[in-house]
């Protein structure tokens, strides 16, 4: 089974990030790491390949500055190889452009399955996986919490507010994976030492057939016109325990329809 996993390399959330005042986008001229939300996709892909008894997981990533460390982390987890699309023309690409570029890199690999995280931890558009599916003209299932392969199709448990849906989907397909549904494995010592020698193919947008004005700021159909501080969270309701507090809490939760 051949699985392509899309991974994003993002500024370390542990470090204080900064917005570029001109573009109002996150500054990315710092060291980038594997987006934690993508580690679930990598793990899911590795498990599917293990269960299938053969095949491999390959990675596809787009990054502005030839950053490889996040990809190396996913290679150390067990992915077989990676493709990195990186050049300065790509800076400023919006979600659709990103999806087109990733789709172009995925297409040549003819995978059985494409996996991506539901949304990145820096941009949070949550749209790229479905856009990739649209560009590649493949079926797509979002918010997968489990995937079972059976012949030329998969059965996906799709997370919903009320529980989960069971969705049958033919292969090849693009699946987005919800964070937290599997436990990403730790890279092993051997995996870490071997990661550097695994194939990592670097490509530019031009290599994939994109003109300079089709990607980056020039090719983007969107502009960030304003950035505002998130509003402060409002103070919660304090229930004093006068002996009836438990009833008031139950009533409060019932009103929220959580119980």
């Amino acid at each position, binding site marked *: 089974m051949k699985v392509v996993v899309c991974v994003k390399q993002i500024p370390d959330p542990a470090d204080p990030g900064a917005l570029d005042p001109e573009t109002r986008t996150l500054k990315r001229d710092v060291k980038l790491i594997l987006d934690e939300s993508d580690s679930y996709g990598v793990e899911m892909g590795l498990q599917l390949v293990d269960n299938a008894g053969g095949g491999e997981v390959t990675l596809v990533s787009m990054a502005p500055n030839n950053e490889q*460390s996040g990809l190396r982390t996913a290679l150390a987890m067990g992915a077989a190889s990676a493709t990195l699309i990186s050049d300065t023309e790509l800076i400023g690409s919006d979600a659709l452009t990103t999806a087109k570029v990733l789709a172009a890199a995925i297409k040549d690999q003819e995978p059985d399955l494409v996996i991506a995280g539901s949304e990145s931890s820096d941009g949070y558009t949550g749209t790229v996986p479905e856009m990739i599916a649209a560009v590649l003209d493949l079926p797509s299932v979002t918010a997968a919490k489990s995937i079972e392969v059976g012949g030329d199709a998969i059965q996906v448990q799709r997370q919903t507010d009320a529980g989960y849906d069971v969705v049958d989907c033919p292969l090849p397909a693009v699946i987005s994976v919800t964070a937290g549904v599997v436990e990403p494995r730790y890279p092993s010592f051997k995996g870490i030492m071997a990661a550097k020698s695994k194939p990592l193919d670097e490509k530019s947008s031009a290599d994939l057939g994109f003109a300079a004005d089709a990607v980056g700021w020039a090719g983007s159909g969107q502009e960030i016109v304003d950035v505002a501080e998130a509003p402060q969270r409002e103070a919660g309701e304090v229930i004093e325990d006068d002996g009836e507090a438990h009833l008031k809490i139950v009533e409060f939760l019932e009103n929220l329809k959580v119980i």
Partner: protein
Amino acid sequence: MDLRLSDEQQMIVETVRRYVAEEIVPLEADLDPDAGALAPDDFDRLVDKTKEMGFYGLDIPEEFGGPGLDTTTRALMAIEMSQHRAGLYNPCYGTFGGAGLAQLYEATDEQKEKYLYPTLRGEKKGCFALTEPSGGSDPARAIQTKGHEDGDQWVLNGSKLYISGADKADFALVFARTSDDPGRNGVTAFLVDTDTSGFNVRRVVHTLRSTHYATEISFDEMRVSKDQILGELNRGFAIANDRLSRQRIPYAAGCLGAAIKAQEMAIEWAKSRETFGSVLAEKQAVQWMIVDNEIDIRHARYCILEAAQKADRGERFRTEAAMAKLVASEASGRVVDRAMQIHGGLGMTKDLPLERWYRELRIRRVGEGPSEVQRLIMAREILGGSFK
């Protein structure tokens, strides 16, 4: 000196950091503040995990089945592994495995079969019995435990103090004077099973570590066969010197890890705690404490990495290892002390790990050779061996 980490080292550091954050810290939250062990089920589960990761038995040399880490990588891991409440003396609660006593790697094949390999498999525990009531920093002269030959046996008499784990150990490495030479050339190391007649644990000795204790042991006409001698007769101090110097580097790195975490906590608290209309971080008195912490942390880090890199290049690193141990243990104590000051009353409580680190870092200035002995080692190296 190049302080940058290789890609592999960076990944190993990130892996251990994640392991501490995801596996250790959540379990620790439910333990007694002075606990030194995980629940057996949790311990076994995590050992399976570190074995799967290929990191179990970190300090075991590659030829004995260990992962074969260089000293720098091992030090970098130690910096991460100690960044939790029990991290100084129980880094990751031992889930990365132990290596046994360094001296056992110099043992005969028979001794290795009997002591080293069972230790590596976790089937036997050893203890290190060197210090005596008469002293520990200059053990070569302080040792009064005596051995005399009787046929094909040695008979030992004497006592040892501040010995960790003797009451739970299966065997002890006992140093005894076996000749008239009053110095290091008259001391022999013996491997002694703790169920040998004459081996007595006399009492436990409580220390700054609340739930941990040391022991006092005595030897009363304890008979040990000659094949229990480790190394050569009267050459007990010549064993494993290189390994022991090397061990000072991760020891120093463990101190640094606690300091790094304490500084992280101090910064977070200083940025959020308001007094007199502004956060602590806006007050110069606090800013300077944070800066002094940073200076101490970087100083210790440079010394540790310099020692480790020299060791890895096969260069002489005795001075550097001693300096790393001295600087890291003292600097980390200061960092934790300042972090407690910044936290005020909260810093004194067992709600935070600071007070435990504060107590345990005090021991680190004495354990594994006190600061004064580290200075002595450096003085000999700097001035030459003739100045004693």
